[in-house]
């Protein structure tokens, strides 16, 4: 198994270095998220009142923040929060969007028409503002943040899957499955879905990047997760006031972590799209 998988992995990373680098960055953050309790040098929420705003160096390579908490430990602990929001949000988006896209693409007709017009209409709301406003309206609990981001993602997944379904609807294997008397749900989930899911997988990485950004933005504005929780957006919010007085490390390090994680997800998504879309690949040659 591994003997076959290795050359393939090497081949993929040679064809798409973007994909490979993105994957490695994410692997790093995943390790940080899982191992955080064992590798943080300090408790990320332990305040040291006599060691406030210490510059980077010595026992605190990233310095300490306004409460005397170790910035490095907080940046490491933040990875778990980013994954903890992005993964469930994308799962919600897929669970709602994919079956909807399957059904509406297969059924076609007025239902499909209305659904697509509705999704088009949603595009007039700037996505960031819509997410912020709905989360603020629903109440900024962690559950609501995940739910709102996931629901706003679902049209993206529905659209991608629908496009695939339209191309497959009249293909031979679908026609024969129907002729054999399979019920609609079986045709959709057993016969069409495995052939239509690839595009959605590439989107999943891009949407996860968006989820990480939005949840950090909410926390930065003070609407989402509150300090002293080690969440990157909330940490940048704390750091904002110190930037103009020179204690840059409080806000800069969580910002770099946030950029790297979003960059990794975007590179993964970009690479997957290139790999999966033969037309796009032909165009890049």
């Amino acid at each position, binding site marked *: 198994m591994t003997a076959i998988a290795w050359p393939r992995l090497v081949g993929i990373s040679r064809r798409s270095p973007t994909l490979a680098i993105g994957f490695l960055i994410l692997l790093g953050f995943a390790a940080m998220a899982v191992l955080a309790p064992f590798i943080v040098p300090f408790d990320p929420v332990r305040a040291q009142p006599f060691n406030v705003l210490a510059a980077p160096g010595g026992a605190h390579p990233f310095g300490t923040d306004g409460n005397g908490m170790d910035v490095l430990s907080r940046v490491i602990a933040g990875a778990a929060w980013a994954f903890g929001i992005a993964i469930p949000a994308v799962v919600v988006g897929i669970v709602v969007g994919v079956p909807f896209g399957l059904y509406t693409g297969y059924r076609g007709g007025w239902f499909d028409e209305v659904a697509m017009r509705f999704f088009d209409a949603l595009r007039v709301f*700037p996505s960031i*503002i819509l997410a912020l406003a709905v989360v603020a309206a629903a109440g900024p609990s962690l559950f609501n943040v995940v739910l709102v981001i996931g629901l706003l993602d679902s049209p993206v997944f529905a659209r991608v899957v629908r496009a695939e379904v339209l191309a497959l609807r009249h293909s031979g294997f679908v026609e024969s499955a129907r002729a054999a008397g399979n019920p609609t749900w079986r045709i959709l989930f057993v016969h069409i879905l495995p052939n239509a899911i690839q595009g959605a997988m590439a989107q999943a990485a891009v949407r996860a990047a968006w989820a990480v950004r939005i949840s950090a933005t909410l926390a930065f504005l003070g609407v989402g997760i509150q300090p002293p929780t080690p969440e990157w*957006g909330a940490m940048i919010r704390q750091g904002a006031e110190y930037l103009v007085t020179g204690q840059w490390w409080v806000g800069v390090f969580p910002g770099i972590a946030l950029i790297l994680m979003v960059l990794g997800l975007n590179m993964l998504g970009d690479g997957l799209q290139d790999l999966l879309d033969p037309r796009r690949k032909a165009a890049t040659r």
Partner: protein
Amino acid sequence: MPIGGLLLRRVALVVPLLFVILLGTFLLVRISGQDPVGLLAGPTATTAEIALVRESLALDQPAWVQFGVYIGRVARGDLGASWLSNRPVLAEILDRAPATLELIFWGVLIGAGIGIPVGLRAAFRPDRGFDQASRFLSLLGFSVPTYWLGLIMLFVFFYLLDWAPPGMGRISLMLDPPPRVTGSHLIDGLLGGDREVVGSAFAQLVLPVLCVAIISAAPIVKQTRAIALEVLATDYIRHARAQGLPPRQIRAMALRNSATPIVTFIGTEITGLVGTTSLIEYVFAWGGLGQYGLSAIIAGDFAAVQGYVLILALFSVLVFLAVDVFVMATDPRA
């Protein structure tokens, strides 16, 4: 079909769109669970006034009747009163709109001025060093949190280098804003001929405009490259190549055929930028529409949030419409 008929059909499509938008903003306040009577009457309303508003809103009626009442109110230009300032939301928004448009205008102008040539160059020589570098920088631009970029700009150019003024509004606190004509301090200052005001307004503009430019350039690079690559792969370009046309002429051909989709893309990008810019406004205390909307979201002032989201959506509708009209006017196939 004559262009007039096409135009009319396109405008008619706006009506169902408006319906969905209003439904969205109507539901937004319902989700929030706040009492719409309070939102409309404002914080200083007396009991009698509140009773009057409750009746006029048809709150004893089913939800769809209330929705009808809401549509009627919006049609008359009544977006309710802000909880925080007790002023009409529409007036507050219109007051602040020029500051935001100013930021977006200069930002997109610079962003497109950098992004389009970079994207084209990358597409003409794909997979070379320049292409790789521009793709990476564009991905980086996609990944930088807007507000963090603004904070870093302030740290570097205000705190460290002292080249830029502090991020506190659109004009130095020592100066009086110029008499309002357009709402842009820079243009109003030029009209009034006050050098000091113009200088201060310009200095305040530089950093936030730079942020908008960076944020908008990233997708423009990516999209321009993709569009130009697609055009370069078409049959007529291959035909031109086979005929041995010089590369310069082929590039000119590709450019002409890429122009329309690129402009279309920038148009749609502007609608999203209105949201992103609000975060830049927030960091630089810009006092525009975006900062107003974000502050309302943070404070839970849902009359203002509702009006803000509605205005943004209407702005997007206008931009989409303008883009489509532009395409109709320039593309002979449409």
